[in-house]
């Protein structure tokens, strides 16, 4: 395309379609930013990328000891407690680290936002790449654990990408919402650690959903992480899975994703003025 053909009109209101095209045009920047975030994260650290493994590993050990050994909660049928906890840890780690790093992404890149144009959504979205890399590394560790316990996952594993996709939607939706709010009201940077800590206990990470009493199941399923984690455990261990929880997780994740985008777009034009 010749430069003469690229006529750009800037007016007060722009449509979403143009935005989508812009996002595509800036895809290289997206990957560059993701690369930068990953590289910078482990600069000047001794064990570097090992941190990615240490965190879920330590949490897993604590949860196995506290819930499995001390509280003596039952595992899903025939599944080593360690594996069950790790199956919950992985999606949770992915969602929470996307939200944690993504929600201060805009504020952390204020120099860029106030100086250069690009679709702002690139910044928080790029953070999911970092979480995906973490997830991948942990998945390898998970594979080693499977081999150690000589456990063969069920054939349901083919549905795993579906639940991971829901996790991506949910994480991005929440990230868009919080990161854009954070630009205007810095309060939200204090809310995120709270959400993450709270979420760890109201989601079936250290325990199996089967320990939750029947009558509370519906309210419990309003937390979309429940459906995602249960789904992933169903994929790996053929654990029992209630259709309601999956439907609720799917609906809430998609809604959150759409709402996040809508909200972000609404605030985006003011970012440079407030940041």
């Amino acid at each position, binding site marked *: 395309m010749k*430069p*003469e053909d*690229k*006529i*750009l*009109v*800037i*007016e*007060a209101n*722009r449509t979403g379609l143009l935005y989508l095209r812009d996002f595509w045009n800036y895809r*290289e*920047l997206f990957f*560059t930013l993701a690369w*930068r975030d990953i*590289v*910078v994260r482990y*600069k*000047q650290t001794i064990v570097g990328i090992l941190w990615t493994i240490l965190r879920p590993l330590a949490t897993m050990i604590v949860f196995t000891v506290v819930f499995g050994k001390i509280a003596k909660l039952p595992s899903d049928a025939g599944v080593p407690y360690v594996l069950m906890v790790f199956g919950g840890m992985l999606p949770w780690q992915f969602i929470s680290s996307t939200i944690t790093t993504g929600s201060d992404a805009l504020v952390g890149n204020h*120099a*860029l*936002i*106030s*100086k*250069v*144009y*690009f679709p702002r959504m690139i910044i928080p979205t790029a953070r999911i790449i970092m979480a995906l890399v973490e997830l991948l590394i942990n998945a390898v560790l998970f594979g080693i654990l499977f081999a150690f316990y000589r456990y063969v996952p069920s054939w349901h594993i083919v549905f795993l990408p579906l639940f991971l996709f829901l996790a991506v939607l949910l994480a991005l939706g929440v990230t868009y919402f919080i990161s854009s709010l954070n630009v*205007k*009201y810095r309060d939200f940077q204090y809310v995120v650690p709270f959400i993450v800590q709270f979420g760890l206990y109201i989601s079936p990470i250290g325990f199996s959903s089967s320990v939750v009493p029947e009558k509370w199941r519906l309210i419990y399923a309003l937390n979309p992480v429940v459906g995602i984690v249960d789904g992933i455990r169903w994929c790996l261990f053929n654990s029992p899975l209630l259709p309601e929880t999956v439907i609720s997780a799917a609906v809430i994740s998609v809604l959150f994703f759409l709402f996040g985008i809508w909200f972000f777009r609404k605030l985006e*034009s003011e970012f*440079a*003025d*407030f940041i």
Partner: protein
Amino acid sequence: MNDIAVKVENLGKKYVIGHQSRSDTARFNEYLSSVGRSIIRRLKNPLNPYDVSLELEDFWAVRNVSFELKKGDRLGIIGHNGSGKSTTLKMLSRITTPTEGRITMAGRLASLLEVGTGFHPELTGRENIYLNGSILGMTRSEIRAKFDEIVDFSGVEKFLDTPVKRYSSGMYVRLAFAVAAHLNPEILVVDEVLSVGDAEFQKKCIGKMQDISSDNGKTVLFVSHNMNAILSLCSKGIVLDRGQVLYYGDIREAVKRYIESRRKSPNASLENRPKPDWVDGRVRFTKCAMKNSGGTEVYSVSVGETAIFECEADCMEEMNGEVLIIIDIYNSCNCHVAALNTRNLGYVSHLRKGKNIIRFTVPKIPFYPDQFSLDLYAEYYGSAMDFAKDALSFQTNPGAFHSSGRINEPYRSIFAVDYSVSTE
């Protein structure tokens, strides 16, 4: 729209600003009640981003700005701080959206609003070239193709694999500018880059920018307080004042208008200014100008150049003997940096009735780059005859004071001093 590169129509940007409502909060109980009021207002309106004790008001940072640039035009945007220059550039480079109006652009626009945008201190020079390049809109293959050129231009090849947080500020700026200068946009926006780096590097930058804009028919929008840089780089100028266009057209005229608008009393009105009541008015300054060694009127000089301050005075009667004329020079911090007078030189001026011209020649201006204003004063045997506050404003630019051509950078001091060094 064939040869038009940028078309701006009635551009406007509105901000909502808050300011303290007019209540006297000097006394403590009143202060408490105002705090109480604001808590109540905050509860009523929990998601208001502003301090609710503030009253909101619309503020137009830029309004009704229109201009049109053909391909290859170089526009200098001039104005005081807060005149709307940066807001205009921000809208052009899409950082903020306009409240009203419309911008049409043909081709890619890249902005150098601040060099080093997106540089990450932890990353090495090499990594930052890639990062910065793609932030400024280059593709990876473009960066790879120009990588050697960028490194050459910056002159930091030895430190390419050192994190930039260990760079000196000069190296940092050079690398940042090098990346930006090798962008290949059709429209280039440059804001204040030239206020950094040493004189030699600045010259290189101006040269590079002239190359960029003249060789490839690129359109350049340039914002700087350095009038010399603007004059040497731009063909058109737009002067902004409080968000409005004061002048749009030829760059020489634009610079002149801008310098004149800087004075509290414009050039011609030295004659119309009110006479201070403590002077007797037997002499009246009517004009003050700065000229270069060639005798042309200038508004800025480079450090080390010759400056001639020329003032015109109307005399009511002939005066023989010691007429004292003083030029007081103040810098932008309002520090009294120099006083030139007729007495120190032992010069006895004889003023004739009518028009007199008094010339002070400074062979080597020693002031580091800054804005200066100048007061005129005349006295005859102890009685004050005239005083003109801010009779002239001028600025000094980076230049070669010493024969080596180098000066201190950044300008930590006010003066360049002539000296020699010897070792034993």
